[in-house]
């Protein structure tokens, strides 16, 4: 395996790192909050006494978005995140790394099998992660657990995703807080051109009072996916 040489913090995003390898290549990484433990077979590298987890943009849309030049990344150390659709925890584990011990991630997932994986690979080792086996379409079902959050990150690939995200944001998002949402064109409506679906989902957010601040395509890291950042004003 090619050796990692150096590491530097990302210019814009705290706790996001860029690892330089021997062959001149560079990869994103985060500092592993659960040393020694891999979540999805990612590479672990040791530099200067710290363990970094290489963050794969082909597996994680947030990493893809960062490499595609995302301007606002509200996910910072110490903040509170409500994450809809954690699946087995690929992206959530990196978000947990970024938040660090003083932040908190409430992770919602409704498929029991993947939730089990999420618990055993991610939540069990990370004190800043609170697992919630629940349906993101019914936020009142976890309203007694979740506090107000700074960011809602949504990756639930549902038709009318924006409606559900806005429902969650109405209940849990602080004023000035952020929505980050991956929109999968195909699973929302296959009959329409991708761009049309993105537009519709963004309109829905705007109508519900959330200002879209940024939108980008994730190609080549992800086909037919867009990434949207919006704010509660």
């Amino acid at each position, binding site marked *: 395996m090619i050796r990692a040489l150096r590491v530097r913090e990302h210019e814009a995003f705290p706790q996001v790192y860029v690892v330089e390898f021997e062959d001149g290549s560079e990869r994103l990484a985060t500092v592993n909050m659960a040393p020694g433990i891999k979540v999805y077979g990612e590479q672990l590298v040791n530099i200067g006494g710290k363990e970094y987890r290489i963050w794969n943009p082909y597996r994680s849309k947030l990493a893809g978005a960062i490499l595609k030049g995302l301007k606002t990344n509200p996910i910072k150390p110490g903040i509170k995140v409500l994450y809809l659709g954690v699946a087995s925890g690929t992206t959530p584990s990196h978000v947990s790394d970024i938040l660090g011990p003083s932040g908190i991630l409430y992770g919602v997932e409704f498929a*029991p099998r993947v939730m089990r994986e999420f618990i055993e690979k991610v939540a069990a080792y990370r004190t800043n992660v*609170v697992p919630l*086996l629940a349906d993101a379409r019914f936020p009142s079902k976890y309203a007694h*657990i979740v506090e107000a959050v700074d960011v809602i990150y949504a990756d639930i690939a549902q038709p009318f995703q924006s409606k559900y995200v806005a429902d969650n944001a109405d209940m849990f998002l602080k004023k000035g807080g952020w929505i980050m949402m991956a929109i999968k064109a195909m699973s929302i409506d296959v009959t329409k051109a991708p761009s049309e679906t993105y537009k519709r989902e963004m309109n829905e957010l705007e109508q519900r009072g959330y200002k879209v601040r940024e939108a980008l395509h994730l190609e080549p890291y992800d086909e037919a996916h867009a990434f949207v950042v919006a704010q509660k004003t």
Partner: protein
Amino acid sequence: MAKKYLFITPLAVYILDEHGEPIAFYKLYRDSMSREEHVRLLYDMEQGRLSEKILEFIASNIKKEDELVVEDNDLGRFISNNLKDARVESATRGDAILKARENLTSIIEKTVGVKPQEYYSLVHELMLQLTRLKVKEVAEKRDLFVAQAINALDDVNKTINLFASRVREWYSLHFPELDELVEEHEDYFKVVSNIGFRSKMTKERLKELGIKDDVAEKIVKAAQSSMGADLTEFDLEAIRLISDTGLRLYSIRRSLEKYIDEAMYEVAPNIRGLVGSLLGARLIALAGGLDKLAKLPASTIQVLGAEKALFRALRYGAKPPKHGVIFQHPLIHRSPKWQRGKIARALAAKLAIAARIDAFSGEYRADELREDLEKRVEEIKTLYAKPPVKPERAVKAKKGGKKFRGEKR
């Protein structure tokens, strides 16, 4: 008339005024309370149920003319059904509750006396436990599905063998040499279904089907000089009906295996982690469910699936079997005979623990269990490296009946 808001948190229930300030609270969490009780309480709330005491607390803090806003519909309904005079409204867009939610940790600290850091670690623990409980509950009802699936898998395997023998015998009338050249049933089916006539066998086509180079060459050669009878399209169609079905059965087999593997992850992750999904599912099927398996002593798990041999032993005083289906585990069948019984015992002991964790707590500890087991097996291998010297024994009478692999002693 005033609007009041019900605000529920993991440690206390609050009544808020219109500005989101708590005017009364009821502690859910007490030092005397066990973690299990606390988890149960949160679980009930999620199901839309509140305890007597919480209802009393609500009743004593709202006046007749007050309107109580509750976020969750089910809880709202529960309260209005149980407190006849209460005027309950469900709404999820109240600034009052959002405001309290923003101050959650400081409200908790003031009222319950739990500091933020401690609060978060409590919530982390509680939800870890509650979520495990819920995942387990979903899975519990699925163990019998897995048991059926493994039985179906056995049916499929039997049918594959049956059809394979039939197709081999039938197609051999046309191309007898193929039978020995292609050992894998699936490959045989592929050749018959996709190429059919031996005159059409070419190296390229055979390789497309995934047949190895040298074998393909032999097949082509054999086809050119075959002694088999000629075949008409009419005859071939009939053979293909069965061969195609054979191929379809292989694809069903793969889907079933995948289903079992995924379902086992949910139903019995520790058993799966220890012995793999198929063997694990087979044990669940033999026991009649995960709960039943979890209640069996290790010594019974050790011989599950060897009932015939066990009864024979009881009846005729023969030696009892050392292993049932767990013989299928490579640690056992790849070991020399004289070590198998000991390894089987060690494996069964770990299986008993794994089954209990799966049935009762749902945590994942298979990796430790497997490491322990491997250590123990290493020990056995060094302690009993040589076969024991057999004492002279009288020639034993052979009782009839076929020996099963799983019942060997």
